């Protein structure tokens, strides 16, 4: 059944992105909004808009019953969940389908399976994808935990099976640490997630974060190559690139093939991302997790492949087969995305919601700015601080970084402080130019290089 209308169960820049993709496909759009979001850009761009609840996300964008009721009342064929909020909530996917509508994403069962970290590791292992050395499944006793740790070597991470997104993780540097942390971790996991199940993984101390974009229609599965997202602060990505330019070609082929094998193992439907850690020194890669949604950083993949990922996921949800074959997916040039947040980098990244007095968006070849901003808009304080993504594409990485520096200089946001200055410093940094980074690079760099440049300490909070 072709989708003729859809409801956007999200807000901010991704809601705008989904509306643009839907309009290009001739699909009617209905935007939900909280009481704090009545004047957001997506409300202005959508064909219709309906208020879903009060400002608190729990009472609006995360309220499954209210969102499904709105979708039914609006008479739409489908619901697009975007990223964050309910995008990886299997109960929401089930509720949408139970209401007779199409959820634009995988089935609830697939979301549930891949969202369970232990089950996802097992799926990866079955598909022949290397996982971080650790326990084969859940472990119930300290004896099992120490046996695993002796085999993999310390340090190890004790993780909650029901955790995720960086929550429910403890690090044990040695056996004494493990003996101390294990019982506490189990009790905490039980309290936080209602499930005391734990598993153990070796800590990979120095690695790149590399992830593979996948697309599947339930029968055919392809990859759209990889992204590198090693520049992170507090486990949140700050700057992303495609491709991971230092990855050797044979490693790229193995990595991408393993992501396709994993997609095939679960008969994946929709767009997804398989995340890995890649160790430059050994050339080994390890599966971390699968994200069953469109990701914030999807535009860098779109820029180098020419594929509209959001349009493709809508078409697949409507029952179409993949519109592209693997041999038609080609990398052209290099792309970088900078996340523009309303945060003050010189005051410990304190969030700074407020009014946009003036906005100048850079233009030109290979420059794209995905945003929710317009002049006169007041950013509410209740949601994420991401307000825009500057994406730049060029024939190679060196030219891309030069073009990025110019685009950052041209991007003007008068009003709240933003992270534009941070990205300007990164774009001109010699280590970034060489690609000499790993997942812990940025936090160290903020303490030393950036603090030196701004004359302020990077962390206050």
């Amino acid at each position, binding site marked *: 059944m072709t989708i003729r209308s859809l409801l956007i169960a999200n807000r901010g820049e991704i809601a705008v992105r989904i509306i643009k993709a839907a309009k290009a496909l001739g699909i009617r759009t209905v935007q939900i909004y909280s009481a704090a979001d009545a004047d957001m850009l997506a409300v202005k761009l959508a064909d219709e808009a309906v208020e879903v609840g009060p400002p*608190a996300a729990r009472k609006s964008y995360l309220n499954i019953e209210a969102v499904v009721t709105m979708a039914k009342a609006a008479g739409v064929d489908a619901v697009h969940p975007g990223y964050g909020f309910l995008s990886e909530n299997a109960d929401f996917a089930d509720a949408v389908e139970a209401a007779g509508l199409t959820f634009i994403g995988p089935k609830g069962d697939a979301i549930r399976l891949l969202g369970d970290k232990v089950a996802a590791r097992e799926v990866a292992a079955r598909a022949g994808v290397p996982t971080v050395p650790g326990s084969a499944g859940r472990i119930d006793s300290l004896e099992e935990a120490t046996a695993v740790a002796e085999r993999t070597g310390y340090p190890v991470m004790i993780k909650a099976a029901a955790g995720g997104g960086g929550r429910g993780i403890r690090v044990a540097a040695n056996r004494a640490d493990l003996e101390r942390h294990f019982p506490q971790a189990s009790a905490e996991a039980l309290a936080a997630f209602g499930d005391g199940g734990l598993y153990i993984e070796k800590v990979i101390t120095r690695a790149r974060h590399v992830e593979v974009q996948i697309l599947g229609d339930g029968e055919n599965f392809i990859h759209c190559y990889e992204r590198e997202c090693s520049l992170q602060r507090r486990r949140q990505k700050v700057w992303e690139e495609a491709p991971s330019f230092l990855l050797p070609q044979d490693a790229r082929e193995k990595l991408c093939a393993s992501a396709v094998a994993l997609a095939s193992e679960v008969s994946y439907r929709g767009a997804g991302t398989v995340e890995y850690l890649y160790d430059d020194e050994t050339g080994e890669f390890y599966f971390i997790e699968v994200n069953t949604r469109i990701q914030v950083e999807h535009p860098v993949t779109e820029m180098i492949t020419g594929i509209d990922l959001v349009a493709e996921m809508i078409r697949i949800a409507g029952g179409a087969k993949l519109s592209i074959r693997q041999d038609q997916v080609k990398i052209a040039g290099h792309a970088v995305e900078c996340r523009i947040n309303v945060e003050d980098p010189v005051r410990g990244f*304190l*969030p700074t*919601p407020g009014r946009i007095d003036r906005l100048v968006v850079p233009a030109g070849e290979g420059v794209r700015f995905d945003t929710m901003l317009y002049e006169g808009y007041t950013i*509410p*304080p*209740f*949601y994420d601080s991401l307000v825009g993504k500057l994406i730049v594409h060029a024939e190679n990485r060196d030219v891309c970084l030069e073009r990025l520096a110019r685009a950052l200089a041209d991007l003007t946001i008068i009003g709240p402080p933003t992270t534009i200055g941070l990205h300007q410093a990164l774009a001109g940094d010699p280590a970034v130019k060489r690609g000499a980074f790993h997942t812990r690079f940025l936090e160290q760099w903020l303490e030393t290089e950036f603090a030196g440049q701004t004359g302020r300490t990077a962390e206050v909070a």
Partner: protein
Amino acid sequence: MSKTEIRSPLPGTFYRSPAPDVPPFKADGDSVAAPDTIGIIEVMKTFQELSAGVEGRAIRFLVDNEEPVMAGQVIAEVEA
């Protein structure tokens, strides 16, 4: 008897206790010292503790738990 107002320095969501299912930092009627934490303001998923900033008796909250607040809005009053 004069009243002193305690205002939120930031816009966001006001919480009276450090976590759900935990008693509030201060109950109505409590005395406060300037460094005492009286609540938390959540702004864009980050949590900032709000201290009283003044010493006083008989604090009275004007904003409920989990309610949105604007920068400069009066959160509570104390008797100086």
